[in-house]
């Protein structure tokens, strides 16, 4: 770049590159490259030195657009945004995605929604879901209590990565619900014409107006844009890293579906209650440990030192190497809790079947049927935060929110 020239972001410049005169808009400087959008729409990345000559520069102000936080009329629905891509916008020059609160962008796609629902957008967090922490679950639960007083349903937009953790945590934190809590996300970001976000959100708003008194998840049931599933939060899991239909109910069918504008909830579910109430605390000193051959006894013992409770993802019906028995026994003897789950994901634990299981059971390991590891972790955090320790085990093995299935039928695996 010619010396003395300072190029500012957003300006339009004429310049010479590789002996050709070009015109473009400067989008920014990234990793010492100038990012320029040419007139034909293509972006190029140029090292400033490569630009031999700047013919002209026009500085242009950025345009700020207004957005609406409320839209439509009818049933009151609150959409609490935690920063998932679903209510995000893309900066079309850089391709960067940033969160938006313009709720009308979603609702205006579906005219009947504008007519039937009054949707309010509540900014709450703006984080990537992998950065979600237990404290924020508690804050979110409080926010839900607040919103439940003025809305008939709550939709929570959330990144898909840890959505089932948050859904489980909320399910356990919320003792009773006077409104449906519907989590929604998208696997294709909203900047793509093919995004799944609008359909997922349309379904979520409709689910939120039902009498579903639980924490649910509203996501595609297949890779087609035609049927959205309502999954029970404590039994759902993100089972594919990229597909639209990544979320699956483990061991049961989805509670309901949304298709052709209609909600159909066919599975058993808890109806909403008269009021919403919550547990006030959450115990953070809990974690998940994934057993594998080659794991050392110190791996386990050092990890356990820091935790009041641990969810072990064992093999098969809930096994780990028998060399760990002593460490585990010492741990549970000291009043702490070890809960066994299975890394198979599907199916139940049962420590009565094989000798290792029976040894673990005798060493104080708790097993709670087919509870999922994510549900076990969040349930443990809520139980340990709010109940005396002598009740922990009993609570853990007792179904609270549909997280322990009593029956698994043929078609759900």
């Amino acid at each position, binding site marked *: 770049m010619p010396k003395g020239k300072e190029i500012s972001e957003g300006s339009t410049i004429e310049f010479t590159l*590789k*002996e*050709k005169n070009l015109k473009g808009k400067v989008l920014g400087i990234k990793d010492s*490259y100038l990012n320029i*959008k*040419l*007139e*034909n*729409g*293509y*972006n*190029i*990345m*140029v*090292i400033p030195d*490569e630009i031999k000559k700047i013919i002209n520069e026009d500085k242009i102000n950025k*345009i700020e*657009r207004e957005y609406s936080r409320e839209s439509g009329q009818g049933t009151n629905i609150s959409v609490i945004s935690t920063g998932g891509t679903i209510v995000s*916008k*893309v*900066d*079309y*020059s*850089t*391709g*960067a*995605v940033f969160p938006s609160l*313009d709720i009308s*962008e979603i609702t205006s*796609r579906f005219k009947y929604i504008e007519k039937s629902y009054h949707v309010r957008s509540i900014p709450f967090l703006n984080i990537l879901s992998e950065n979600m922490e237990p404290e924020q679950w508690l804050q979110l639960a409080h926010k839900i209590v607040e919103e439940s007083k003025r809305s008939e349903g709550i939709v929570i937009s959330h990144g898909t990565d840890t959505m089932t953790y948050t859904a489980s945590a909320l399910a356990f934190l919320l003792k009773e619900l006077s409104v449906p809590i519907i989590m929604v996300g998208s696997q*294709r970001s*909203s*900047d*793509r*014409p*093919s*995004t799944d976000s*609008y*359909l997922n959100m349309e379904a979520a708003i409709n689910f939120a107006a039902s009498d579903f008194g639980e924490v649910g998840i509203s996501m595609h049931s*297949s*890779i*087609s*844009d*035609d049927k959205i599933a309502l999954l029970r939060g404590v039994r759902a899991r993100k089972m594919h890293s*990229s*597909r*639209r239909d990544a979320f699956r109910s483990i061991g049961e069918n989805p509670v309901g579906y949304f298709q052709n504008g209609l909600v159909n909830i066919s599975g058993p579910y808890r109806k909403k209650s008269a009021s919403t109430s919550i547990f006030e605390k959450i115990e953070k000193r809990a974690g998940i440990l994934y057993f594998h051959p080659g794991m050392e006894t110190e791996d386990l013992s050092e990890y356990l030192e820091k935790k009041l409770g641990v969810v072990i993802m064992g093999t098969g019906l809930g096994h780990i190497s028998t060399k760990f028995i002593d460490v585990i026994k010492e741990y549970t003897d000291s009043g702490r809790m070890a809960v066994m789950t299975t890394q198979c994901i599907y199916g139940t634990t049962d420590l009565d079947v094989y000798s290792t299981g029976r040894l673990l059971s005798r060493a104080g390991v708790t097993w709670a049927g087919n509870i999922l590891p994510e549900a076990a972790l969040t349930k443990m955090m809520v139980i340990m935060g709010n109940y005396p320790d002598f009740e922990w085990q009993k609570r853990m093995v007792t179904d609270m929110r549909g997280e322990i299935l009593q029956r698994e039928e043929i078609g759900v695996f």
Partner: protein
Amino acid sequence: MMDLPENIKIGLEVHLQVNAGKLFCSCESEGRDTGISFTRILHASSGELGGSDVSTLYEASRERIFKYIASDNSCLVEYDEEPPHKINRNALNTALMMASSFGSQILDRVVVMRKVVIDGSNTSGFQRTSLIGFGGEVRRGNYKSKISTICLEEDACRKVEESGNMVTYSLDRLGIPLIEISTEPDITSPEGAIEVAREIGERLISLGLLRKGADSIRQDVNFSMGNGRVEIKGVSKLNAIGEILQKEIDRQIALEKAIEIWNARGGTEPISFVVNNSIMNGTNSKMILNATEAGKDVLLARLKNGRKLLKSGEFRIGREIADALKQIGIKGILHYDELPAYGITLEEKQRISDFLELGEHDSFLILLEEESNAQYVSNVINNRIEKLLSGDFSETRAAMEDNTTRFMRPLSGSSRMYPETDIPVIEITRDMIENAIKNAPLPLEISVKEISTKYGISPQDASTLIWNNTISIFKEMAERGDPKMVCRILVQKLPELERKKNMKIDNKTLRNVFDFCLSNNFGRYSVEMALELISDGVPQEKILLQEKLRPVDESELTELMKSIEEKRNISAISKEIVSITGRPVDSSLIAKVLGNQSRSKHLNNT
């Protein structure tokens, strides 16, 4: 040859399919249906509504469902269910070679962009495209054109069917690498366009990397004659360029004249439809009766000063309007100039004219639609007329079978494009550029000469190999020892078989057959037998077997010959041996054994 206006400018966008697998995944170029399909809806991206692209908005106004048929050369990437993989290095290097071939400048960094296309032809709603280089020149004979850009992009889905609001696509073509070479609008004749396009295509052919197939070369033609740029999409046959351009010129000239008249009359006013279902009471027009029976309304609008311009003599503004309406799925429109017709009587025409209080030069439109659509439809018509009257004919048009063109959508603007964030910026290293220069394709005739000389085959054969797209297989296999044999099979036997059995043998299969036979030191007869069996539909795994393709050797042959009675015709003997053994046999070996035997027989007889 043609009577051309002086100010015409032609530019080309030549799209060449590269035969090197898909651009952003590991699928192959060729594939078949799996029988599995899925459906999608595309949304105009919210973020674009501000500084958005007109062509995108245009598509978004049409509510359509897209159905995609998964082919066995598609994967989660094509389904838009997985991020794109890293760019196909072979395709990229091919694009760089092509750029070098025309002396274009290659960018040091390639940024993959998303070009929004929401007609369903891309499952994602955008096409991935990247600018590779610019500058350079195409020359051929007396013609030449400057290159404006060289891009590497993904091909789109292949449309299978359109019915109602459902469009069905196959995924087999989606993601195939396309090299797009765009020239400046510096060509001044259709002949020039044809020659330039031909030269561009031949370079990739010369590399042996053009995909086989009817649509492997497609060109868009940019054309202007002073009324704005028209982009004509989908000109697949080169020779049609002349006729297409002539018809487009005729269209624009007629348009110019009609507009002149219209403006002279004082221009127009925006139309506005009013319902009048009773006006057609007692009509015998089936078209009207069917429409009203289907619950549609009779909507009428006055078109100020439009009389005898919509369809009269050379004037066809009616078609311009109808084309625009067709894009939003509206078909039932009639106008003054074409009546009486469709069962509508002169008297009824007069009744409408009276009702709309038509002036001397006014025309009218009859729209058979539900009233609720009236506003939307009139907007589309008004926009269309306003644009034409302003003398701006710029738009994207589609080339039709009859070499006319049809309105397709407004021109795309640059705001259709934003970066593909899933793919990091690709550095073009010095090595890559050196490689591109070294391997840049030469003009076809030079390539032909070089190949002919190097492998000792005739220039015709070399040319055939190149045009048949078997040159890369030829080179590869010829290096293993017997270029003439390989050439003979590829140039003679293969086309003969394909013609006879009416089926194509793909390059992968060809490569497998040669590789197997050459690895086993089996010769021409083995390759031919393998190809024959393949063209009969026998699966490869049942053919490429040692016990199947090993030629009958001399001692075996000697033994076999004993049982053959008629020993005059070598070809007949050969057929018999093959039918006995199911294995190939070398005719010359038969001749040799025959010689030996007749000698020994002779000996015995005497």
